[in-house]
């Protein structure tokens, strides 16, 4: 079976600064893969290369079986993306946002109608379907944004810090949605700053200064570093880098 994400020696330089330094990643189909790193470690640069927003300086990356550099079109149809910033349109209603993305991804009018009905129902937004997105609470917005990213049933979905600023209960519900997507066979590639969320992932990769410093299941990583939580793993890895940066 082909890997959902297959990355070799992927590199991105900005002038003399190397933001992503020859990283390797392999993510299985249906995995929930956590991508951790301090601010400025190169996470966002790496994600941008995987979704075709940034061209690599070197190395190769295949997503959903296609090369991101040469088969961008094929990749784009098979991936979903939820950016760090809230990416729905405030001045459109819930249903209008769904319809827009359905149309952009080439769904038929009927598919759009059926899927948005199901989605609105599942999210409990039936009474708010005609409200402007601006007026609904943040937690609902994030869940809606995730559902919209999943509307065209992508094979891989990229979530860039999806739960920033969201209350603990909504975060819990959000992760239930992530598991449901993974159970349906979608690969979930997620970055986060919350270390408790990292524990929910099938496998993790921790980036430090543009390199991958550790990779494995949460259990493997904890035993490798002899600590009790992913938080401690992260602190051990990130500390030398932080000390160097402060020097």
């Amino acid at each position, binding site marked *: 079976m082909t890997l959902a994400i297959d990355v070799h020696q992927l590199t991105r330089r900005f002038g003399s600064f190397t933001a992503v330094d020859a990283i390797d990643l392999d993510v299985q189909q249906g995995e929930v893969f956590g991508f951790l790193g301090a601010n400025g470690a190169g996470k966002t640069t790496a994600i941008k290369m995987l*979704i*075709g*927003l*940034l*061209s690599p300086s070197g190395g190769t990356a295949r997503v959903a079986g296609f090369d991101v550099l040469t088969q961008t*079109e094929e990749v*784009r*149809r098979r*991936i979903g*993306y939820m*950016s*760090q*910033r*809230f*990416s*729905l*349109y405030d*001045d*459109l209603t819930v249903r*209008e946002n769904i*319809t*827009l*993305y*359905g*149309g*952009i*991804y*080439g769904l038929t009018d009927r598919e759009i109608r059926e899927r948005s009905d199901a989605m609105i129902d599942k999210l409990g937004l039936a009474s708010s379907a005609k409200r402007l997105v601006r007026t609904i609470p943040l937690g609902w917005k994030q869940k809606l944004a995730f559902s919209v990213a999943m509307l065209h049933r992508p094979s891989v979905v990229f979530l860039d810090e999806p739960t920033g600023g969201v209350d603990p209960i909504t975060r819990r519900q959000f992760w239930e949605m992530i598991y449901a997507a993974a159970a349906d066979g979608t690969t979930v590639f997620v970055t986060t700053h919350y270390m408790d969320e990292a524990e929910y992932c099938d496998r993790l990769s921790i980036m430090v200064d543009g390199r991958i410093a550790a990779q494995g299941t949460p259990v493997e990583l904890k035993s490798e570093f002899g600590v009790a939580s992913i938080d401690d793993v992260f602190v051990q890895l990130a500390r030398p880098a932080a000390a160097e940066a402060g020097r």
Partner: protein
Amino acid sequence: MKLANRVAALRAFVVKETRHILRDRQTLIILLLMPLAQVVLFGFALRTDVNDIRLAIVDAAPDEESLALRARFSGSGRFTTVATLRNPDQLETRFRRGEADVAVVIAPGLASDLAAGVPARVQIITDASNPNTGTTMQAYASTVVAAWQGDLRGARAGVRIKPDIRMQFNPTLESVNLFVPGLIALVLTMVSALMTAISLSREMERGTLEVLLVSPLRPWQIILGKVLPYLFLAFANVLTALLAAWVVFRVPFRGSLVLLLAASTLYTLVGLGIGVLIAARTSSQRTAMIGTMLGTMLPSTLLSGMIFPVASLPAPLQLLSNIVPARWFIVVVRGIMLKGAGVTHLTTELLVLTGMMLFLLVVATRSFRERLA
């Protein structure tokens, strides 16, 4: 992706853009009323034809001929005699205080000079502190004197050469006829360049553009999707401006409306190209807005021939005016509106605009893509 799917995706995008426009009521109302307000305001404020010219007459020794000349002035409808003086010494103060715009000084013995066949002397003095109106007032005054003189000759010496001057296309020299085409250009620039720059940089600022770029939408679909709804707004604006110009100022429309709308489409696309280019090169809505103001509105007003004729600009600016799209578009609109010109008369201008459009759309799409790499 199949063409049908591309069209469907474009449709979804156009619907979204239309909703943005319709939902932002305040901006929409401003955009729709702008041409009306501009035609009326500019039309009244910028006109260079002058009425109610205040006239001071110096007539040292009134006789039948000098009285006849004075009657000509008061009968012309343009002049109001504010002072009749015996002595030219007081003129200086009158002008200085701004009490008179034009003075006509009639030398003593006008009737006797004329009777004797000696050249008669009439002097016209104009307040030219505003050169535009000064020239116009001067011209009006000369016309009155010339008419008087013409009749004089006709009566006394039989028929001589009598020039019959007719101002073609704009016989009454209504300056508003010249401004309306300029205003159409200005309004279209605002709707096309400014609004696309703002709406595109808003999507960049808010991060929604990133999501669109990750989707299967191609850059040309995004640009076209932004363009189409504004094109309709531009049509509405052109029609409003024409209607307002006709209702309020009776500006004629002699040419083909279809041709004018086609030319407006071309010009709007040029503006949109500029808007996209500016949005792609700037990082915030505010910068994009100021950039568009400076980069399009200013040259469209000052270097386009809308207010100041291109021929009266200094040579370097004349050269520069060639890259201002409005300079070409205004010629087209004036040609269609006032002269009823067809495509064949406007080939150069239309070709220049087409060239500009192709160049800008290619460059804009490219710089849009470069932002990603």
